[in-house]
């Protein structure tokens, strides 16, 4: 009787598997299919959309948000939520400009300052969360405000470029060297913008670590069940700090790219970065039916938003529609992730 029952059960599982497999396929490739359809529609209405130039300019525009989204998805994976990425990037681009324009530093010094700031912001978040036990969202919200305010102090709230008058009355004399500006403006072989290369490298490293190494597993395990991870011998507090440091460093790299592109320290640079990055990371849940934070999905999410905005702009959609469209996309992706996910797991 036991044997009969077990074959019965297996065959039931078998038919169920076949029945769900088409749905599973749709679930996995839904966002990518949508991306292809969008691309086809845009190309049909405006052939210039598919030009190599335009595609790379979309990627370049999306690269900063995509970088930040990678950081956010790492903190989401560890069970946290880094809300400070936008202001970390903004502060980093201010710091880079300050090093270049006020201290007359070279490009390396500017990038080093950015990265140091990113490490600092990540450590600060991580220690607030693991040592002082402040809940993740609240701690990083605090850091968001701290950094957003901090970046205004050295320049008295002004944007920073050659000739800016500082609060102490002196005028800045330094300038952005070409080597630094190249980070944001140059194109490799005159085709691929440097920020896109940076994004590709960061994404590759992050995907490899998160999906194929034991370190990535501990990150996801800590986010899934910290007690179980700790009892299995994982130093979970250290991993949580490390996730925030990674997020901070990646965000500050994004900040350096912004400074190089804009060519000055802009006080308004980080305004919409955070929400765009969070949206991209959440859209990433729906990519490949992952239903979980994942690095590649976040990048796809950012590119998706970039394609949509670029295409609609080409078709002369008014700029004030942008946020509404992003919102609709995010809600759609979330509904897709959670409703279909629920059905599939019964």
């Amino acid at each position, binding site marked *: 009787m036991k044997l009969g029952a077990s074959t019965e059960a297996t065959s039931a599982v078998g038919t169920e598997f076949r029945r769900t497999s088409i749905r599973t396929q749709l679930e996995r490739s839904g966002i990518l299919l949508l991306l292809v359809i969008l691309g086809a529609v845009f190309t049909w209405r405006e052939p210039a959309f598919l030009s190599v130039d335009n595609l790379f300019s979309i990627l370049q525009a999306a690269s900063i948000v995509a970088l930040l989204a990678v950081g956010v998805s790492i903190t989401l994976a560890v069970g946290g939520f880094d809300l400070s990425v936008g202001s970390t990037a903004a502060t980093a681009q201010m710091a880079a400009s300050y090093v270049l324009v006020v201290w007359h530093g070279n490009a390396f010094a500017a990038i080093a300052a950015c990265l140091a700031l990113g490490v600092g912001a990540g450590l600060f978040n991580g220690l607030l969360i693991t040592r002082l036990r402040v809940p993740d969202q609240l701690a990083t919200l605090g850091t968001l405000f701290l950094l957003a305010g901090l970046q205004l102090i050295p320049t008295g709230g002004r944007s920073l470029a050659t000739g800016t008058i500082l609060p102490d009355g002196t005028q800045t004399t330094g300038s952005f060297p070409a080597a630094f500006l190249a980070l944001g403006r140059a194109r490799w072989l005159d085709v691929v913008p440097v920020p896109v290369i940076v994004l590709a490298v960061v994404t590759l490293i992050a995907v490899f670590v998160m999906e194929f190494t034991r370190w990535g597993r501990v990150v996801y395990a800590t986010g899934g*069940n910290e007690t179980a991870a700790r009892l299995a011998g994982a130093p979970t507090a250290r991993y949580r700090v490390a996730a925030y440091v990674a997020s901070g460093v990646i965000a500050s790299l994004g900040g350096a790219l912004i400074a190089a592109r804009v060519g000055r320290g802009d006080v308004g640079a980080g305004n919409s970065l955070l929400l765009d990055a969070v949206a991209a990371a959440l859209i990433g849940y729906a990519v490949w039916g992952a239903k979980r934070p994942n690095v590649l999905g976040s990048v796809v999410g950012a590119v998706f938003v970039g394609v949509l905005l670029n295409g609609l702009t080409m078709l002369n959609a008014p700029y004030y529609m942008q946020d509404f469209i992003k919102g609709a996309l995010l809600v759609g992706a979330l509904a897709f992730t959670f409703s279909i996910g629920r059905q599939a797991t019964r």
Partner: protein
Amino acid sequence: MLVARSVSKRFGPTVALDRFDLSIAAGEVVALMGANGAGKSTIVKILSGVYPGDSGSLELHGKPYAPASPQEAKALGVATMHQSIADSVVPALSVADNLLLDRFNHAATPWFVGPAARLEEARSIAAQVGLDVDLRAPLYTLSLATRQLVTLARALADKPAVLILDEPTASLSSAEAERLFTALDTLRKRGVAMLLVSHRLNDLKRMADRVVIVRDGRLVANLKPPLDFDGAIETMIGRALPKTRERRTVASTANQGLLVRGLKLFPGTDSPPIDFDAARGEIVAFAGPVGGGKSRLARTLFGIEPVVAGTMTLDGKPWHPRSAAEAIRSGVFLVGEDRWNTSLFPDSVPFASIEGTLSFPFLSRWFKAGWINRSRERRQAESAIKRFSIRCNGPEDRVVNLSGGNQQKVVLARSHAEPARVLLLDEPFQGVDAGARADIADALRASAAGRVTLVFVSAIEEAFEVADRVLRFDRSIIETSIEDLAGA
């Protein structure tokens, strides 16, 4: 009063209850005994209206009784006091409001009841069980035992004819249990029929007019006191009890195994220090009530709870682990109680498959370079699946899709993936059906050679099922004979 005739219940291929008969007369207390997964909770759930039986019939007061929901069962006069009181009370509300919770949801209750009237009504409910506390105090300020009386009072608010008590004394001391029994005595005199789910010898001696034993979903014994407790336990687990061995002398285990001397778990209490030896190859069970410090002892040996006083020696060397990682590196493994809380990862975690779960504690040992070799991982999982007869389609199966017993086998297989010097198992049979329990016990006995195995359980029959030696534990080891053990 309450009669069940030939009630059966299946869950998929598993027969949970097989033509079960039961009758309880007015004023009678029937104790229900059975091992985990034997069908006890199925009986309780059918009687209390959580779900219906597949076949058979129920009668209450001689009329057919088929409750569609726990609320309806209660309205018909069958009240249930569940084991985990956390699910049935609101700690932040006052005692009075907790007593009146059901009234609040009653259509007949007016939309506004003044505080004085509420207090008055709550007082009359509290009086039924002799509950004598400040009814305005928030519930969380009361002791566990008093909270239990609050749940009891609430169950009695509608003057039920039948009361079902699911392990009501599981977390109570004997003095606290006595308070509960005094309250139950009054009910018995009033003619309330009671079904008491319990294994404690004390509970049975003190309360039961009759003992019903269920095994593999079938009624196997219907006993009247005086009760032969060993016989009852043997009937329950379906095999003879092992003889408890003499405690070994220190000399024989000094260099091979675990030696604990003068260990104190709780600071500033006067509970006697803990001394015990466990030799390699031996399975020692610690049996005792929930909240008696068993889990804490396990965690202390594992190094994640501080040693207040005393020494631990492993294979002749001092044993002072400072973290779980150090313990695992040294070959001391802990399988925590409540698998979803302490061992398994939710399905949102990408590697929450059988193979990923198995390899997690050993990632740094198996994959030193960092990169995970999936085929090595798969081989490990395949051998574990075979060894523990885990029923699944393969190593990539998600753990959430396995049955409770198979999930527990995955957790146990994980602690066997590398050789252990000491294996600590906290409630390893929790939420496991009878068949899987036997598989687990067999696997533990088969692999016990060469390591010290300590099992921490609250159900005494589980201790006997797996262990060579059973120690009764409540804050410290209590020297006892088997009869006392049975009362743990």
